[in-house]
């Protein structure tokens, strides 16, 4: 596949879908139901605004979204109180599918959202976005409403405040450019066309979401891209420029942990798809270093990338959706 052709055909700017009246009419013709999931962990400062803006603009004013749910990993602050005070449906992740147990991590919330929410399309939006705007949702939904062959729409952010030249570099954050894109270039070159593979905002058809496994930690976005690519190819993907995203910046050491989780997921995928063969067990302990009283010491972090199975294989989900039990 010619990457530039794919980019031309499958890369959008959110303004292409800004006529919400028209987009709602198109949605109604398709009969699609759309759910919005906001995974949270201690996001009391930003969650209220997200809920108010999405509910008011995309449910009350233009009925583009049919339900909004906040799925929380056990916040210690007032995240759930704030979200529910502004009218969001709020859920504790551990209380969804309790028979499946509970894992810590954003991916766990995303996975359980598939069971909890009813939409044919689920839009995931991170809760830490300071400059939240309805475009974060309609920009991702638009391609799915207009193009049945597209199943997975990823956000990217690409509006420099000032740039004088006609050619400028474009891409993702530090982990994307140092880790993910080099790995994709080595093993899945076509996926390098996804400009920000790690962005936390994406909209996906249920039929795709329920059929892929979910790492509960840092690797969830990477695994999605690889798994959907393996099953459906690049035609399933589109991406939308949502302009700027203002959020908390992470320290380099935190990005180290993130990279470690992503790398684990990546290596598991390479192994399971037979791209590389290794008998060696992948380690789950990341070691970083610090100096205490002029003495160097290692600090160990256990970061296992536990994976949830495809939701379609979970008995309670099959029952809820009227699917026959799987044969043992």
């Amino acid at each position, binding site marked *: 596949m010619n990457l530039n052709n794919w980019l031309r055909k499958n890369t959008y700017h959110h303004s292409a879908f800004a006529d919400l009246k028209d987009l709602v009419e198109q949605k109604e013709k398709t009969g699609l139901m759309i759910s919005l999931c906001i995974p949270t962990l201690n996001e009391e400062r930003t969650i*209220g*605004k997200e809920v*108010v803006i999405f*509910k008011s*603009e995309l449910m009350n004013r233009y009925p583009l979204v049919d339900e909004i749910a906040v799925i929380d990993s056990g916040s210690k602050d007032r995240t759930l109180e*704030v979200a529910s005070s502004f009218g969001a449906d709020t859920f504790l992740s551990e209380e969804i599918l309790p028979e499946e147990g509970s894992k810590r991590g954003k991916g766990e919330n995303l996975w359980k959202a598939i069971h909890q929410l009813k939409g044919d399309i689920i839009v995931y939006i991170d809760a830490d976005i300071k*400059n939240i*705007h309805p475009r974060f949702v309609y920009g991702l939904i638009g391609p799915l409403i207009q193009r049945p062959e597209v199943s997975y729409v990823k956000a990217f952010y690409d509006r420099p405040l000032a740039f004088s030249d006609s050619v400028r570099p474009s891409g993702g954050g530090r982990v994307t450019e140092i880790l993910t894109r080099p790995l994709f270039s080595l093993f899945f070159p076509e996926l390098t066309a996804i400009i920000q593979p790690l962005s936390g905002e994406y909209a996906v058809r249920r039929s795709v979401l329920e059929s892929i496994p979910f790492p509960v930690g840092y690797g969830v976005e990477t695994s999605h891209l690889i798994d959907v690519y393996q099953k459906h190819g690049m035609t399933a993907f589109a991406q939308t420029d949502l302009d700027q995203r203002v959020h908390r910046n992470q320290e380099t050491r935190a990005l180290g942990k993130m990279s470690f989780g992503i790398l684990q997921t990546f290596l598991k995928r390479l192994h399971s798809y037979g791209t590389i063969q290794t008998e060696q067990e992948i380690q789950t302990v990341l070691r970083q270093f610090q100096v205490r009283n002029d003495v160097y010491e290692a600090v160990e972090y256990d970061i296992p990338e536990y994976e949830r199975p495809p939701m379609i294989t979970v008995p309670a989900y099959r029952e809820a959706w009227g699917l026959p039990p799987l044969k043992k």
Partner: protein
Amino acid sequence: MNAQCETILEDLDEYVVQLEDFRETLLSTMVMVNEIPAPTFKERNRAVFLVDRFSELEMLNASIDEKDNVLGIIPGRRGDRDILVVAHLDSLFDETVDHTVTLEPALAIGPGVSDNSLGVAVLGTLPLILERIGLELDANLVLLGSSRSLGQGDLEGLRFVLDNYKRPFTAAVCLEGVKIGRLSFSSIGMLRGELTYKIPEQYDWTKFNSVGAIVDMNDMINRILEIPLPRKPKTTIVMGQMEAGTSYNTLPVKARLRFEIRSESDEIVSDLATRINFLAEEMTSKTGAMVRFKEIARRKSGGTEFSHPLNTIGREILKRLDITPRIAPSTSEVAALIDKGIPAVTIGLTSGESAGELEESVLIEPISKGLAQLAALLKAIDIGCSNES
């Protein structure tokens, strides 16, 4: 008050209840307005947002004029009179300030939320507010997001509309975020001035008593404060802003002082301006520095009487809402309307804190009463309760 006007008061409680669940629409609009920076003279982006809202709500003549004012009309059933509702678009904060709003269950926090994003948001949702309570007016409602209001803007946007709008306005209501209970129907005399102090490049620093701009400007402030002010008519001088200096040990060569003279008497305002100008000239001759006085804005005193029917119904509405009316003169939009002889009142929509600071906030719960107050006031004007018989 006649029986028809009494019925307006009776509807108030129901308005409050009906408007309680309108807060999401209003807050969402307020957040989006606030996050578009709009310092005075740079309101264009905020104006585009508002005019888009006006167009979506199918207002007539939704447009941006050459001063970046936004105007839209909700046509009345008869359309034989025009009532103006105005909220200024500009804010005190520069584009470089983080305009992000935080929403908590009880309040919204962000620079400019009360002055005047809430007012602009009410303007941008007014057709929906009226629809929610089933209020249709006979008169046209002319909604105006006015530009260039604050500071050096000197109400330029509103004045432009008043000079060029082709029909007379029956009355006007000006919207400000805070504080609910406020009723401003008169303007005090006001002059906004700037004193600049500059030491010429060829200045001889070995000259005896060279102290630099800050000390000299401090001397100037003391001399202004020594000017005796009468208790009646009420008069005050506000020292609002001062800029000077760059480091610990460098004598500053420039300074700027911004101040405001307020008085119930226009003559006293003029007299004080003359005196301050004289002090500036005197300092120039004594120090060798260039001290200049510049008039930035001026308002004439005036307004309607306390007993004017518009003000009377305004107070009655507040009392019925269990809010104590706070009568205070204003130097904002209402002043330009008074200049044109248009009965006008400024109202506040909710309570808030830290106005003019980065942590500016508005309380969410009182907003429904603020909206009910506005709706009732518009209805009162529409059916003639505000007319002088």
